[in-house]
């Protein structure tokens, strides 16, 4: 809904922090670490999931499209793989929101884990790798799932900072 004229203006910090933090997390793929195996979690996806699970009303369901496109460009994945898989995740989370409106934090972690596995495997398929290659990304999947709480905490801290008056 567009903000009405009589509402006080929302400061830039409050509006831009979520998007900026997701883009910055995607840029972590450009860290100067040269790896011969997939070792780093997809930070952009984790940040996006953390924001989405923390603040369901923040973004419309199509918001994952531009974020996915940016991540594809930065990470060297085939263009469109992040767009499609991230948006599928958003649609699924929307359904879950309706089914389970009251969720615990642990349930959110399960959701993030399932979403990460889906996106990583989908990314592999998009890169034309066979499913037999899944064992090589198992470490990355584990790291991603274990990294979610840390990312989620960071996002929560950012959220507090963003809404501070």
């Amino acid at each position: 809904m567009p903000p009405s004229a009589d509402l006080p203006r929302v400061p830039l910090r409050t509006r831009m922090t979520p998007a900026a933090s997701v883009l910055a997390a995607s840029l972590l793929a450009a860290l100067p670490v040269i790896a011969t195996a997939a070792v780093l979690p997809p930070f952009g996806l984790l940040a996006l999931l953390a924001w989405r699970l923390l603040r369901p009303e923040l973004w419309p369901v199509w918001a994952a499209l531009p974020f996915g496109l940016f991540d594809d460009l930065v990470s060297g994945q085939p263009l469109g793989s992040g767009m499609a898989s991230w948006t599928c995740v958003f649609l699924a989370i929307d359904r879950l929101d309706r089914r389970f409106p009251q969720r615990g934090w642990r349930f959110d972690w399960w959701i993030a884990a399932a979403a990460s596995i889906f996106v990583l495997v989908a990314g592999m398929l998009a890169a034309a790798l066979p499913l037999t290659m899944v064992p090589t990304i198992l470490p990355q999947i584990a790291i991603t799932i274990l990294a979610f709480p840390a990312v989620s905490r960071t996002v929560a801290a950012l959220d507090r900072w963003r809404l501070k008056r």
Partner: protein
Amino acid sequence: MRPPRRTSPGFSRRAQFGLFAAYVAAVAGVVIGLALVVAARVDPRGFALIRGAAIDAIAPLSAAGRSLVERVSGIDDALYAYVAAGTQNRALRAENMLARRRLIAARGLERENRRLRALLRLAEHTPDRVATARIVGSTASGSHRLATLTAGSLNGVRPGHPVRAPEGLVGRVLETGATAARVLLLADTDSSVPVLIVRNGQPALASGRGDGRLTIRPLVPGPAPFRRGDVALTSGTGGLYPPGIPVAVVDKVDRDGALAWPLADPARLDFVMVEPAFAPPLPPPAPPLAPPAAAPR
């Protein structure tokens, strides 16, 4: 208190329509994304302009932090060297003795080689270099093993050019931006290099496994002609990689091949050379058939 859900827009027509439009946009986006993936599969060079611009944009970011990382990642080596100094010293002494003896033999061979080459009037193959650049980063979270190079199409780098370091082959250029390029590392599952084993000259194919190691398979059927410690060089077959670049050293021999580690560890590289794609000289064209001297009959 939980915030109100976006999924219950209430009775406002406008809010209901907005929610519906968001779903339509999302589903359309998924379809477009899938179409892009399929397009990329059909034509891997598509969107080269956009992708090239993205590489150009992130390469300076990676380059900035690279020197710091190099310093940090060297620490474990330094510690180990300190602990193992005594035994290492003894081993190096023995190795030095052996190397000196071999060097003398090699000098003799070199002289003989030069003489024989002169006899054969063989020109030495000296590959001209396209560019020297730094490897500044890689996509550690993607499913392909790609590294970022600080030279692009402005420096003459083109997709397909082999990239090598002093230690050995690194990979080949996959896509280029104006001032940066992406290199497909040897360890990627899409990379395969025709090699030959130095010890016995057996031709083989080294392909990436996606976990940092390579699989080496012999081209001729029969028992695997590998041994632990064998070194594989590029053979020049196929015309992409120039012959004679060290590729990998065999670590473990299994039933139908061997596991090998690339000799050039991409995590330790700083400068690499981009060479033009090697094409072996074509054989001279067959002499045209003599025109028929006279019309038959």
